[in-house]
């Protein structure tokens, strides 16, 4: 979606069966990084980041929106769960290297810590411009179990039954959402001064 400032919105849209738009979400977290030995990557040069998380009614459940790199920001997922999301959508285009290293563990962690189903749809294989994406679209239950998974090369469809009782069951077994507490933070620099004096010795 083109924006007035010349950039674009990386937007996820929830369509109703009749084609009307029920809800939409603009990707909040943008990948801006200087990669050692590689070119700088500035997603924010092309896209404007959104500033609003979204939970929406979907067929039979409440859906929390995220997009790709958002999966690395647990606070967003927690906020969605606390706002009533039972299912988290993660449309993605992970690169092959980052996918191999992080894809499964990030998705399973977001499911476990929120007690939500995670639906992750991923670009897969070698694209016409030569870029490679990791694939492995998957459906994960609130206990972190992978219910369905595609491979890394072949486009296809992963389907699973979503039993929302699993949300309450997981959150009942490990009520980390309910048990969260506010806390203060202290940074004690005494240890650093000891190290500067050479103590303890290596």
């Amino acid at each position: 979606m083109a924006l007035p400032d010349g950039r674009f919105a990386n937007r996820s849209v929830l369509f109703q069966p009749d084609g009307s738009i029920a809800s939409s979400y603009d990707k909040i977290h943008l990948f801006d990084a200087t990669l050692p030995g590689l070119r700088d990557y500035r997603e924010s040069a092309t896209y404007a980041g959104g500033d609003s998380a979204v939970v929406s009614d979907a067929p039979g459940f409440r859906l929390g929106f995220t997009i790709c790199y958002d999966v690395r920001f647990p606070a967003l997922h927690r906020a969605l769960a606390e706002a009533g999301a039972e299912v988290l959508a993660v449309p993605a285009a992970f690169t092959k290297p980052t996918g191999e290293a992080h894809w499964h563990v990030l998705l399973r962690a977001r499911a476990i810590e929120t007690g939500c189903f995670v639906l992750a749809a991923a670009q897969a294989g070698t694209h016409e411009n030569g870029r490679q994406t990791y694939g492995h679209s998957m459906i994960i239950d609130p206990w972190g179990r992978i219910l369905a998974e595609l491979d890394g090369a072949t486009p296809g469809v992963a389907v699973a039954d979503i039993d929302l009782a699993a949300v309450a069951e997981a959150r009942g077994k490990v009520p980390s959402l309910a048990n969260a507490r506010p806390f203060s933070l202290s940074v004690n620099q005494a240890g650093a001064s000891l190290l500067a004096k050479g103590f303890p010795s290596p």
Partner: protein
Amino acid sequence: MRSGTQPGPNLAELDRLAGEAAAAGAAYALSPEVTVVFAENRDGLAAVAGPW
């Protein structure tokens, strides 16, 4: 999906896969990021950006 740089073929593939999901009983379907266009750069995105 394995989206390319042109929306037409990508949307046709989305239609095929969504139909496959519906035939398997899906009531909700999610497609990947950049389903509509896997642009190489900003110019490629600008060329096809629209109210998809």
